């Protein structure tokens, strides 16, 4: 671990990490892939805003309205800078990554009707969708990057296709999944189970050849690696606040401005309009066009504070720290008898998420005993990626996921815990 990165100092910023759990156990939190803990800086920013500066944004013309609006829009600036968005207006705040993915899925195949009742087809060819058109995802997706596209296919009659996954847990790019009929490709930047970081360039290249749009589900990459949306060159990127030290209730859609311009609105209501008559409306420019109603104000502000925190720690340093933790974990877990790793066994193109099974012991039991006896929080089940588990022929895995506040000592505790689990069920 780099000298500049002082994990003990970082840990002090996270109150829960020094908490004593019921029964006197201390907490070993290895479930950040599910949701991360929050530093005091984020909690305090939210508390202060809620207690002393809160009001609705945009529409209010008084001191509190100005303070809230400024803090909310500052958060947009921070998030935009954090992911290298060419324009701050390309950052749309949603309630989570799932809403961001659904927003994009609902943009396709919307047929517009005139008041008279005659069909007024959606004229932008990039966003039409019907029988014969194809949507491409992968077998390693989180349900939030599967179900919205299934629903789109059902609504429009389009066909859903997917990349397979190799035995090593890599995207299988060998077949001819993307075709001339493909309109949108949406894949995870980093798998929330395997830890695999997917290669964006070849997918993007093929998509561009056939004129398809590309969306990245960056829920597991933005929190852990420096991500530059412009450099990636994709069209849409979704991520979520609660996995990157921010609060619940806030997510982000980044998209290229010209696409946000061309997309129909998704949720209708206050703040997303320009003018409203009883029988029709005109819409505000993006990002507001996609932010109907009172937005998650304090949540966006909390996310802004989280971005500040991550930037102060340094995304490169965080990445290096997690890489060291992952190396340690891969080594240590290899020593546990009958442990089967699901996902890449080397550090190459992978992040700090390690999923595995223990022969003869159900992951639910593994997770619960780790928690019961040692206060070790891991996630067990299919981690909202059931098709991936079907692919590997297993109902569930145990998953440990690391973040900037984790230590090699915690990984050692996990390994000791696994040995104990094996004893209990021996």
């Amino acid at each position, binding site marked *: 671990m780099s000298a500049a990165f002082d994990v003990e100092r970082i840990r002090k910023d996270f109150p829960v990490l020094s908490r004593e759990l019921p029964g006197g156990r201390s907490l070993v939190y290895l479930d950040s892939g599910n949701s991360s803990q929050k530093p005091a800086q984020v909690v305090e920013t939210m508390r202060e805003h809620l207690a002393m500066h809160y009001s609705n944004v945009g529409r209010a013309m008084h001191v509190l309205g100005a303070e809230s609006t400024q803090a909310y829009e500052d958060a947009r600036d921070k998030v935009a800078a954090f992911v290298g968005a060419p324009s701050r207006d390309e950052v749309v705040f949603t309630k989570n990554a799932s809403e961001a993915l659904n927003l994009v899925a609902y943009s396709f195949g919307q047929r517009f009707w005139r008041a008279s009742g005659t069909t007024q087809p959606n004229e932008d060819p990039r966003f039409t969708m019907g029988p014969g058109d194809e949507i491409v995802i992968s077998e390693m997706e989180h349900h939030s990057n599967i179900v919205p596209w299934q629903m789109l296919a059902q609504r429009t009659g389009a066909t859903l296709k997917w990349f397979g996954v190799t035995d090593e847990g890599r995207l299988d790019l060998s077949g001819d999944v993307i075709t001339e009929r493909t309109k949108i490709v949406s894949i995870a930047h980093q798998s929330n189970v395997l830890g695999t970081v997917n290669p964006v360039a070849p997918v993007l290249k093929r998509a561009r050849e056939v004129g398809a749009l590309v969306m990245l589900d960056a829920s597991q990459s933005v929190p852990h690696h420096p991500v530059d949306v412009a450099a990636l060159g994709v069209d849409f990127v979704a991520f979520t606040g609660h996995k990157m030290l921010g609060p619940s209730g806030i997510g982000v859609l980044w998209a290229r401005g010209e696409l946000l311009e061309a997309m129909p609105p998704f949720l209708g209501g206050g703040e997303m309009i320009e003018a409203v008559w009883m029988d029709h409306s005109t819409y505000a420019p993006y990002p507001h066009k996609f932010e109907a109603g009172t937005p998650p104000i304090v949540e966006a502000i909390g996310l802004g504070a989280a971005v500040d925190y991550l930037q102060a720690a340094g995304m490169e340093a965080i990445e290096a720290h997690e890489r060291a933790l992952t190396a340690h974990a891969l080594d240590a877990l290899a020593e546990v008898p009958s442990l089967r790793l699901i996902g890449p066994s080397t550090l190459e193109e992978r992040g700090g998420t390690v999923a595995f099974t223990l022969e003869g012991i159900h992951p639910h039991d593994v997770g*619960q005993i780790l928690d019961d006896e040692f206060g070790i929080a891991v996630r067990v089940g*299919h981690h909202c990626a059931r098709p991936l588990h079907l692919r590997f022929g297993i109902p569930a895995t145990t998953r440990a996921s690391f973040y900037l506040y984790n230590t090699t000592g915690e990984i050692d505790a996990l390994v000791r815990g696994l040995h104990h689990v094996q004893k209990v069920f021996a």
Partner: protein
Amino acid sequence: MIGESMYQELILEHYKHPQGRGLREPYDAEVHHVNPTCGDEITLRVKLGDDGKIEDVSYDGQGCSISQAAASVLHELTTGSTVTETLSVVDEFTRLMQGRGQVEADEDVLGDAVAFAGVAKFPARVKCALLSWMAYKDAVVRSAS
């Protein structure tokens, strides 16, 4: 879990030494239940006696210790009791499991099944505990008709 382990000795005991496991003949009804969320499965058979009592509950399945132990405890609590009695035990067990840790278990009704009280705090585990019990209820309804 919030101070008390979900893994009561009794649960582990039932898991390691399941009572009445295995599918037996004769039977009046057989059901197969699956928990699609976690993949747990159970096949369960019920044989009614002439006296309105449950003569046998036999079962086979796979899943975590909670779901397996729950089936074993179910077997113990139901075999030899009247259908009506067992259904009130099922109801009480369901109430306990769905109470999100805020329901007091009635030990007189539940017997050994109170060991599952700690499970109620984990929505994701509640289904594991209930799998065999729901299958039983289903099988009883079918065998009666």
